[in-house]
């Protein structure tokens, strides 16, 4: 069956035949092969803002003011102008085309950060159902903070972190949640995961996972806090039993720990946290089940569990993601790796935890082949997207796209050792929330492009002077469009390192590329669109 590349022929084809079952979105997406952002307006005059991203439904462009205090939201519109000449299509664009305001209309500018605070420019989570956005502001980081009040030694502290829930339609701040003297990894939303209406916030300093719910009314409601306690009534139970215990043992209780604030508060030194207990007992039971002869069982336990007991007990939660409404994928590691940028050399473990039954379902090391097999087969399910976000279900991964799978297999054969490759792949888990752009131009079935220069992942990349080519995946494999960041004539100064970031609109053939140097020079912003 030969498919024409002509857009009129394709439209006619769409009128007369229905797509194969379950492929209606994929068939509709093929039109993006014909409608591409091929025209570039270089170095557009834009206000002094830091671009974050387009919201996943394409309704808003989220930016921050340069002083990291305000949120500025734009509505993407389209360039419109009138032309009285005969040959309008071949004319140059009018001068207003090189203005940012022709493409985007400012909706509002809202101050989020109080004095002394800064907005985290890499943090933005979007709830498509209600068009709510979550932003984070924080005060400065304090390194070498003393470990008081249940905090872990070695994790820095931030005096105040505030999460703001903003209705993007009009900029009204609906609710806030403040964390004091805590540390939450805000860069690229690493420490927070949004699934449907549930938000998981990982407090690295106190080793807790706070689960919040976003109500339709715009309130943030606490659901549970996992870490020290697993079930909602654990704290009540422990406190009531400690009250009964502490009266005859008052003297010994006061002598035990310096973290003891009152008789009713359980001393931290006596119990491991609830989650840690679940984890250790899971590991123990797993090793217990392997051997049945009592002597060899004890040998096995000594070698595999008790020898490493302190290492297991010292594990800290690094990162968390939802697998569905009840299950979390938790990454554990050593304390030093929690805040390190490069965690390749640190040992890491993954656990699947059911929040309802408070059970650990499985536990893997970061070099586990069986976890890698699941990652290779079901990568889509790790990018857990809720039913509400439609376009996020069509991200191109190696589990749903044969070209991406070929690329992965190619990388696997080129890798020096299988175990290193597995570790490298599993290091990407748990995924950062909403870090992939849903734009169809990143669909591997439609276009071939250099993943090192540009990809659906929302990260700054090293900028090159050459334009980034998007080539049709199907016959006739022609070059469809190019994205060139930076000024049209190229950079005069080739020595300074430049980084680019790309914002693709999820639906329209519209993209913004921002090229910055590491010094405080103004960024060069280009707009790529279909003329």
């Amino acid at each position, binding site marked *: 069956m030969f498919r024409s590349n002509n857009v009129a022929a394709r439209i006619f084809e769409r009128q007369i035949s229905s797509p194969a079952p379950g492929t209606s979105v994929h068939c509709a997406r093929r039109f993006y092969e014909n409608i591409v952002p091929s025209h570039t307006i270089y170095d557009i005059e834009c206000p002094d803002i830091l671009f974050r991203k387009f919201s996943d439904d394409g309704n808003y462009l989220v930016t921050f003011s340069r002083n990291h205090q305000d949120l500025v939201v734009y509505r993407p519109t389209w360039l419109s102008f009138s032309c009285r000449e005969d040959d309008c299509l071949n004319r140059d664009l009018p001068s207003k085309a090189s203005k940012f305001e022709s493409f985007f209309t400012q909706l509002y500018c809202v101050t989020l950060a109080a004095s002394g605070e800064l907005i985290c420019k890499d943090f933005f989570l979007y709830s498509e159902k209600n068009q709510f956005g979550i932003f984070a502001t924080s005060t400065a980081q304090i390194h070498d903070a003393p470990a008081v009040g249940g905090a872990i030694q070695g994790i820095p502290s931030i005096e105040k972190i505030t999460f703001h829930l903003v209705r993007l339609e009009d900029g009204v701040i609906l609710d806030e949640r403040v964390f004091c003297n805590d540390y939450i990894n805000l860069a690229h939303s690493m420490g927070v995961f949004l699934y449907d209406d549930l938000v998981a916030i990982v407090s690295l300093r106190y080793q807790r996972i706070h689960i919040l719910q976003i109500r339709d009314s715009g309130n943030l409601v606490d659901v549970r806090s996992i870490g020290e306690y697993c079930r909602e009534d654990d704290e009540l139970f422990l406190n009531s039993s400690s009250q009964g215990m502490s009266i005859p043992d008052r003297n010994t209780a006061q002598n035990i720990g310096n973290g003891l604030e009152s008789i009713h508060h359980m001393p931290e030194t006596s119990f491991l946290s609830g989650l840690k207990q679940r984890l250790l007992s899971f590991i123990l039971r797993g090793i217990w089940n392997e051997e*049945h002869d009592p002597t060899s069982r004890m040998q096995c336990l000594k070698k595999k569990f008790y020898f490493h007991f302190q290492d297991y007990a010292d594990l800290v939660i690094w990162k968390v993601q939802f697998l569905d409404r009840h299950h979390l994928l938790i990454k554990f590691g050593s304390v030093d790796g929690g805040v390190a940028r490069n965690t390749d050399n640190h040992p890491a473990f993954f656990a699947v935890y059911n929040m309802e039954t408070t059970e650990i379902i499985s536990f893997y090391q970061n070099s586990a082949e069986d976890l890698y097999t*699941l990652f290779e087969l079901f990568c889509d399910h790790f990018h857990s997207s809720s039913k509400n976000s439609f376009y996020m279900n069509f991200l191109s991964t190696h589990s749903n796209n044969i070209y991406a799978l070929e690329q992965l297999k190619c990388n696997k054969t080129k890798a020096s050792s299988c175990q290193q490759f597995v570790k490298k792949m599993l290091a990407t888990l748990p995924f950062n929330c909403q870090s992939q752009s849903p734009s169809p131009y990143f669909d591997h079935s439609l276009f071939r492009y250099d993943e090192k220069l540009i990809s659906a992942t929302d990260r700054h990349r090293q900028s090159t002077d050459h334009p980034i080519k998007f080539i049709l995946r199907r016959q006739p494999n022609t070059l469809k469009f190019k994205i060139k960041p930076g000024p049209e004539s190229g950079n005069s100064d080739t020595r300074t390192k430049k980084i680019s970031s790309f914002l693709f609109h999820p639906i329209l053939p519209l993209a913004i590329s921002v090229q910055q140097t590491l010094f405080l020079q103004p960024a060069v912003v280009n707009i790529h669109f279909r003329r």
Partner: protein
Amino acid sequence: MLGSWPSLDPHNFSQFKPNDPSNPSKMTPVTYNPTHDRTLSPPDQVIVPEEKNILLRHFYQQAEEKLQMGAKRALSDNPTPERASKLPRASASDNV
């Protein structure tokens, strides 16, 4: 509507009666009636989608397999403890 169209044989469509809105069609949709009862579903069967997604099902399955492997190894390694545990049930084994 179909009755008045030209056709090769005038007797075609002669028995056709156009839809009369006052007399609703008594046609029942085609249903499958099983010819045997080997594969009859229970009368109170309700089909619902699986709650857990496939990834979670695999996690649970792997955990189950590890448990079962351990249990199988227990059966193959140590037959004697099983017999020892059957001793208190001497009255039941007498009947066998």
